[in-house]
């Protein structure tokens, strides 16, 4: 009963090159972060995390108020706010704007939110050209793939993969030097920037007291996207709000350090409205599209709504020993790693991929590094309970439920427990250390799964209980 999820995991595990690429890339990001948050360099790191958590909690708990404040301030600076319940709504707003302005070419800077709603596909379906301009995103757009990692979308590809796709799509022959490949992309995309009618960005933060959008990046493509075309449209989930510009002093210190180990990314743009009357350049129109697409649903659960605090730094992916084995494309949605494991079931329902919350050893490394202190393991446990409650309702996985019911029944009756454990111990060859195999009738289910990877400890010659009794206490 292997699922798509299981099959994708197996495919990743059995690709040594990919295994090495994931492990090395995440390992490098981990060590960069470690240096950047070291208490010698940043003694206030823990304090910043606590502050960020408190600010996010406050904002999410009063989200409607901050949404309205944000809207008022965008309007006050001459911008426009559009509200979208779904990805279709977002596309409709953009198509409407494009049509009335005779636009045909759109440049895009990296945004997980637009990945989430397949915006490029929707726009291209209506005859618009929508070009990703972050180098990694550009490459995966050419390959028609999804980002492999929140901050390193092409983490899984080599220079040879890039050479192949550049040959196919750009007609560049056999260019395998990374620096040259980067400069080819620069030339192709520079031309697009200068010709584009509309620039679409995401938003790392929406600042309520300013009506502003904050964007962080390293390449300069987000600056170009939001500076060169006449129209700038920012697409953002409603959870991206923070109350004040001054809160950026906290969040910016955490975001770059947690993601890539940079005290600040190369560019941070704080954008509020179209260009002012006397400014020489910049967009003439500024639109923000506020997207729900399931977010309001997440607010309903007071224990799990903290999932919306996420600032998409990717640290939980890098530090997750499971992500480091199964990579980004094994996950069922664009959000991968621990944050993907907690938000995917909440957006799409636990039934959509019931295995997902269980794909964790609950080691807690994610929560330890999360800059906004989302208690990911706790939410995973909650989601596991949700999965089991749903299975019970739909009468599926009955056999497993029977096992755990029996376990609980026996483990709460000590005499029965003692008889049962004694009996179970007799089934196996006692006191023989670690077994490479077991008799065929036992080599099923969890035993078989265990033995597929490891040797299995035989029951001890005598249980602790027996040894303790023999000691005469």
């Amino acid at each position: 009963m292997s699922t798509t999820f299981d099959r994708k995991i197996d495919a990743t595990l059995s690709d040594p090159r990919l295994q090495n690429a994931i492990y090395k890339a995440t390992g490098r990001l981990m060590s960069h972060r470690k240096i950047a948050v070291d208490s010698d360099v940043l003694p206030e790191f823990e304090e910043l995390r606590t502050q960020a958590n408190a600010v996010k909690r406050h904002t999410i708990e009063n989200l409607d108020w901050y949404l309205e404040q944000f809207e008022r301030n965008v309007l006050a600076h001459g911008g426009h706010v559009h509200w979208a319940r779904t990805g279709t709504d977002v596309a409709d707003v953009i198509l409407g704007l494009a049509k009335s302005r005779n636009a045909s070419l759109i440049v895009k800077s990296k945004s997980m939110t637009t990945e989430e709603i397949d915006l490029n596909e929707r726009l291209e379906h209506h005859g618009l050209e929508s070009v990703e301009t972050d180098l990694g995103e550009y490459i995966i757009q050419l390959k028609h793939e999804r980002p492999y990692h929140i901050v390193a979308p092409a983490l899984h590809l080599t220079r040879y993969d890039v050479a192949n796709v550049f040959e196919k799509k750009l007609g560049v022959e056999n260019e395998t030097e990374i620096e040259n490949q980067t400069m080819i992309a620069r030339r192709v995309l520079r031309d697009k920037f200068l010709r584009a009618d509309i620039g679409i960005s995401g938003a790392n933060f929406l600042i309520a007291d300013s009506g502003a959008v904050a964007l962080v990046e390293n390449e300069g493509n987000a600056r170009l996207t939001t500076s060169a075309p006449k129209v700038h449209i920012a697409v953002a989930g409603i959870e991206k709000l923070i109350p004040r510009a001054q809160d950026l002093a906290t969040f910016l210190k955490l975001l770059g350090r947690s993601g890539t180990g940079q005290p600040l990314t190369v560019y941070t743009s704080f954008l509020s409205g179209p260009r002012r009357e006397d400014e020489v350049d910049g967009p003439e129109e500024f639109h923000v599209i506020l997207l729900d697409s399931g977010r309001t649903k997440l607010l309903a659960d007071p224990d799990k709504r903290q999932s919306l605090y996420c600032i998409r730094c990717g640290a939980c992916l890098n530090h997750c020993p499971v992500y480091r084995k199964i990579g980004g494309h094994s996950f069922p949605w664009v959000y991968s790693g621990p944050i993907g494991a907690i938000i995917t079931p909440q957006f799409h329902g636990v039934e959509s991929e019931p295995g997902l919350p269980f794909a964790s050893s609950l080691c807690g490394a994610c929560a330890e590094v999360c800059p906004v202190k989302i208690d990911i393991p706790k939410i995973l446990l909650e989601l596991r309970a949700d999965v089991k409650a749903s299975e019970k309702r739909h009468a599926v996985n009955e056999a497993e439920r029977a096992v755990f019911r029996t376990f609980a029944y026996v483990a709460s009756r000590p005499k029965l427990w003692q008889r049962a454990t004694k009996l179970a111990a007799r089934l196996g060859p006692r006191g023989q250390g670690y077994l490479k195999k077991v008799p065929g009738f036992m080599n099923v289910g969890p035993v078989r799964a265990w033995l597929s990877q490891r040797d299995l400890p035989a029951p001890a010659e005598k249980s602790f209980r027996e040894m303790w009794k023999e000691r005469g206490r």
Partner: protein
Amino acid sequence: MPQRVSIFVTCIVDQLFPNAGMAMATVLERLGFSIDFPEAQTCCGQPAFNSGYRDEARTVASHTLKVLEGADYVVVPSGSCTSMMSHHYEELFAPGDARHHAAERLSPKIYEFSRFLTEVAQVEDVGARLETVATYHDSCHALRELKIKEAPRRLLANVKGLDLREMDAAEECCGFGGTFSVKFPGVSGGMARTKIDSILRTGASTVISIDSSCLMQLQGAISRAGLPIRTMHLAEVLASR
């Protein structure tokens, strides 16, 4: 004045690694504690809790709360089971529930073994001797939920003959994760092998932990790979003379 401590040996130590439990009792007795082994103990209920079976976890937790009710101290040879009882029992019952209060009362009395030694018994040198090159594996729940990092290392630093070497991935998960190990065997096994690579880089011949479940995972993978490395519970090391 010998104090009385209750021990909760965990189901995995009872059935698979009784020597770790006996070693823990030995060390505690040598320090002058008198040991109580509540016979009615079974399992802490973590397998059900971590698998999403909250009702079943509550049933087992209710039983364990009763079994440990009168204890002054409960010492446990596992960070994971300690964390289940001291952190998660309270979450299982609503604040008005009598069992919620029972869990609140029990929580401060439960000690993982190494923490009990350093904080209650206040010893760091138990007079142990073991000639070996060893490395210590931080089990995740002990490290991240109980914040146990230094206690076992300080105890090991005082074991004569023991050459303790830190591995680069000491804090990385071994890949056990309870039912995770059999629901996602390939991932779990891969994590164990990554951990073993780090162990090998230290040159250690002994891997020590305070959780038998991690050691079962690691020893299972070590044995499969045919490597000359053994795993030992901290209690077994501290009981060695």
